[in-house]
């Protein structure tokens, strides 16, 4: 490579790293406990469980769960129900002042699916983990904070790619993984920076770039919503269950019946999320029911069906577009939560190695010139 080209890549590597390093360090540090949030909750005893009741206690209608939630939090309206695979008797219910807010001030509560009672959990959205989460996700600055961190993530990707280009010239006279520990500290750290950078390369690119995609989640869902509404208006929808289907309960305007009709139209699927009309995930007139399958892949790649609570028609407005697929695959690849505890431990170790790469990079910049002078 020509010396001028090399200097150019060096410039790109230096500035993309310098601008983003402190934020990426923050992301690595706050991300570390977040990898284990499930385990930490378990150890801290703040794990959420449904109050004990006889096995097989039937669940009440969703409409009653919603009514109880609103009764407990007057002035708010329900936006979403979320189901957790391992908490079958609980619903997470998201409430806000309107259905079309940006949800930054929304309230997430837990409701007992059998009684509608709001389960008292000692402030599961406060405390250390919540601070870690907000610092990691949006710096307490909503969408602007997310997009800012996303931009820092893009700079990280640039830094990684330019770092790979610079790897070869630095390694010309070295064996792979050679660390010259008897030389000056800067040389030792340069070798470590190169080694750790190259072994974490693919993981850091994957986690970095999927993190960037996750920051676009709101925009991605907005785009999909627009696409679904457009498909509805153009009449380009696929009807999965007609209004007058005979072997399912007739629509009566209730949420429960609407959801039952969706489940009847999609056998073998389980509810992941229910979105009220007017929210980001639904359309102004339809309830959206997000369904998941039971294989590792289909439990991530969900299917969104729309149902009109007034007439009970179940539709698929538009098949999941590629950018939603990308987002849904980005979540596990960023969180590292798809391969049990061993994968989480590897995630943590690679995260720590990345911290060393960032720290050594900063050190190399601060001590720049030292090696050239002293040889």
């Amino acid at each position: 490579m020509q010396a001028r080209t090399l200097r150019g890549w060096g410039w790109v590597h230096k500035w993309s790293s310098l601008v983003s390093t402190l934020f990426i360090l923050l992301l690595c540090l706050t991300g570390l406990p977040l990898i284990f949030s499930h385990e930490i909750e378990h150890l801290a005893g703040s794990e959420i469980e449904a109050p004990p009741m006889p096995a097989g206690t039937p669940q009440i209608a969703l409409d009653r769960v919603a009514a109880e939630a609103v009764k407990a939090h007057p002035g708010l309206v329900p936006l979403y129900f979320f189901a957790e695979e391992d908490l079958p008797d609980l619903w997470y219910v998201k409430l806000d002042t309107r259905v079309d807010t940006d949800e930054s001030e929304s309230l997430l509560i837990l409701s007992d699916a059998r009684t509608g009672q709001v389960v008292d959990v000692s402030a599961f959205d406060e405390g250390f983990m919540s601070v870690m989460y907000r610092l990691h996700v949006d710096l307490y600055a909503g969408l602007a904070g997310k997009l800012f961190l996303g931009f820092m993530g893009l700079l990280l990707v640039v830094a990684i790619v330019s770092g790979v280009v610079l790897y070869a010239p630095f390694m010309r006279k070295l064996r792979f993984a050679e660390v010259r520990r008897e030389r000056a500290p800067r040389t030792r750290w340069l070798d470590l920076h190169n080694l750790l950078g190259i072994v974490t390369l693919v993981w850091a690119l994957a986690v970095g770039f999927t993190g960037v995609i996750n920051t676009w989640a709101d925009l991605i869902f907005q785009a999909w919503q627009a696409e679904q509404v457009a498909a509805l208006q153009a009449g380009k929808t696929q009807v999965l269950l007609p209004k007058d289907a005979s072997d399912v309960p007739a629509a009566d305007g209730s949420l429960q019946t609407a959801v039952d009709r969706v489940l009847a139209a999609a056998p073998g699927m389980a509810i992941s999320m229910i979105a009220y009309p007017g929210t980001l995930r639904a359309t102004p007139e339809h309830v959206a029911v997000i369904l998941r399958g039971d294989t590792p892949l289909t439990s991530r790649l969900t299917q969104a069906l729309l149902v009109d609570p007034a007439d009970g028609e179940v539709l698929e407005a538009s098949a999941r577009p590629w950018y939603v697929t990308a987002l849904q695959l980005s979540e596990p690849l960023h969180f590292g939560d798809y391969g049990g505890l061993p994968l989480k431990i590897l995630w943590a170790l690679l995260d720590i190695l990345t911290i060393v790469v960032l720290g050594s990079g900063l050190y190399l910049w601060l001590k720049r010139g030292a090696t050239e002078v002293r040889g």
Partner: protein
Amino acid sequence: MMRIWLWPLALGLLSALGLLAGLVSDGAGDWFGWLALGLPTLVGLQGMWRGRAPTQAPRRAAAVRPAERG
């Protein structure tokens, strides 16, 4: 060229396969994922161990200090 890129390429490919394996299959996929991501991690950790600061560096201290004073 090949000498420089052989190991990085092998470890990178292994990492990529490891990242995807756990997504597409439980059980065998998870095991492969742990091994495939574990290897580059191990190489990195081992490098950190080999590259730890020398416990004593009398030669360097002697060589550098007079120069700095002067």
